[in-house]
């Protein structure tokens, strides 16, 4: 029984990693083909640094991810604090329901609906060519917000409800008491939300596809354009590098977590 499980697990993981393996393999392909492997070469990695369109798209994607996740984190954390303090049941439920909408709605509907909004808005003010950096930024912030809120809210529920009062009791005015007493305690939730928002933004294709314009291409959109024709393996090289970077990052996080846990268990006296 145990070996069956082992084999099964192995098969599933092979399934999961097969296309990635293929991609990594072909990123080192000496010839421009995704069928035949000609030999090991680093040519696509060199090509990558000459592919300005791709590099621009990469830069755009990073800028977009940073800005949208930052804005979403600020607005979202404030929102979570406000929602947590809401007293009227119905207002809270409606707000939470609306928060869920971007998460449950299929991406294509979100993308299309925002596009329609922008187009309609443009028509109202008789502008043309509305889709560009600002529309895609708005879209990214919009789908990031729920994840931030839903990361921070549980943390707010977990903390001692009297923390802020305790700070005030000791002489702290209300706003300051939030930042000195509550915020540091919910910080893990805020950070998790920010990181989630960042990664969602990095990888988003469908929503970006509908809300962006020709001048501002993000990496996924660039990749889509490329896959319409033939993909040059320098994209594979880029993906492999991104993948390696993330792998290293996750390993580092895991090691750090394991180490801090060891310290924690030593601390209990």
């Amino acid at each position, binding site marked *: 029984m145990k070996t069956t499980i082992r084999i099964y697990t192995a098969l599933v993981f092979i399934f999961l990693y097969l296309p990635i393996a293929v991609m990594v393999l072909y990123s080192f392909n000496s010839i421009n083909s995704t069928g035949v492997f000609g030999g090991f070469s680093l040519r696509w990695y060199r090509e990558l640094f000459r592919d300005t369109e791709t590099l621009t798209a990469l830069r755009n994607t990073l800028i977009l991810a940073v800005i949208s996740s930052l804005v979403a984190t600020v607005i979202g954390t404030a929102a979570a604090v406000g929602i947590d303090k809401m007293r009227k049941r119905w207002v809270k439920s409606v707000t939470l329901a609306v928060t869920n909408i971007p998460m449950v709605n299929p991406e294509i509907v979100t993308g299309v609906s925002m596009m329609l909004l922008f187009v309609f808005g443009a028509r109202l003010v008789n502008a043309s060519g509305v889709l560009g950096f600002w529309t895609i930024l708005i879209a990214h912030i919009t789908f990031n917000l729920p994840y931030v809120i839903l990361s921070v809210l549980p943390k707010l529920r977990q903390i001692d409800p*009297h923390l802020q*009062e305790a700070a005030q*009791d000791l002489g702290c005015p*209300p706003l300051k008491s939030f930042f000195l007493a509550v915020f540091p305690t919910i910080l893990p939730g805020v950070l998790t939300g920010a990181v989630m928002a960042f990664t969602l933004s990095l990888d988003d294709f469908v929503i970006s596809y509908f809300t962006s314009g020709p001048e501002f291409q993000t990496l996924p959109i660039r990749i889509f354009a490329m896959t319409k024709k033939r993909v040059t393996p320098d994209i594979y090289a880029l993906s492999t590098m991104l993948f390696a970077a993330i792998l290293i990052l996750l390993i580092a996080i895991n090691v750090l977590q394991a180490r801090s846990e060891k310290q924690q268990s030593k601390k209990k006296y």
Partner: protein
Amino acid sequence: MTGTESCIISLRGVTKYYNGEAVLRGINLDIHDKEFITLLGPSGCGKTTTLRIIGGFVTPDEGDVYFNGRRVNDVPPYKRPVNTVFQKYALFPHLNVYDNIAFGPRLRKVPESEISRRVKEMLELVNLRGFERRSVNSLSGGQQQRVAIARALINDPKVLLLDEPLGALDLKLRKDMQVELKNIQQQMSITFIYVTHDQEEALSMSDTVVVMDTGEIQQIGTPEEIYNEPDNAFVADFIGESNILDGTMVSDFDVVIFGRHFECLDKGFEKNEPVDVVVRPEDIDIVSVEEGMLSGVVTNVTFKGLHYEIIIDIEGFKWMVQTTDFWPVAAVVGIKIDPDAIHIMKKSKYSGAFGDYSSFSEELDKLSELEAQPEQPPVEEEIID
């Protein structure tokens, strides 16, 4: 204690509604300097709400709060000269012990050297010497409790508010902390306003006890007064064990219970006024039927270590007697009650609500205590105002 000392906090006609229901009704209370005053009552009686109104976390709907004669209804908590020890301590988890305690002084820009000296003092006071760098999460409940106290006291408040601070501790620790708290209060000569539902705690620590129920003050007095001379059946039942019976004051010093005259020490009632009669179980002697003033059958005997708790059925009314003598079940016995063991109270809305020990067991006792109160919302948590 009363009258001559300066009255530093006053509540006048304080009323608070929650969801349309009154959780406090017309509270009038005077708190004196250097007093250890306890608000005592069952859950939902309004004691914590009263405390939070004094602290400034809750605004009364009606009535006024005065600090040294000055009306402070609209003064926010961070401007009031009181400090609070919260029920679950509310220590800042991201700061260590030292930084938690230093929080208040740092806000007032006290120089670090001074802060360092005073934190050390405080830690000595609460018996946590050397704990400066510890993380608050690694502390036990009792230690966290003491950090919370130190954090409040370092600000030199004239008044300290304590909201059921010992509730989460186990029995032995609780008793030790009670002694420590009383010592600290006397050492520092501060006014302590203490909230608890544990009447033993209240009796052992306080100078003054304020008994509350369903938003109203039932009685204010010293622990002895509350215990020996309860004003109504609620207080008599809440504090200690009592046998509460119907009686008639035939004339001064003479009350009739179960058709028999008893000499007592109370007077000032109307002729033949129906009254509530309180007799504490420890004040009753069990004697032979011939020597007894009333007689009945033993129905239940429980050994409590300190004494036996014996239930005696006298004409259908189950009396509880606490005595060191053993009497077996089904024994026919008499009881003897001295005049000073009888306390007469005027009839109130509580008459008939408590009474005998017919369904006696400790758990049922506590359950019926809770049942006797109408369904209260979890007021203490939800008023975050």
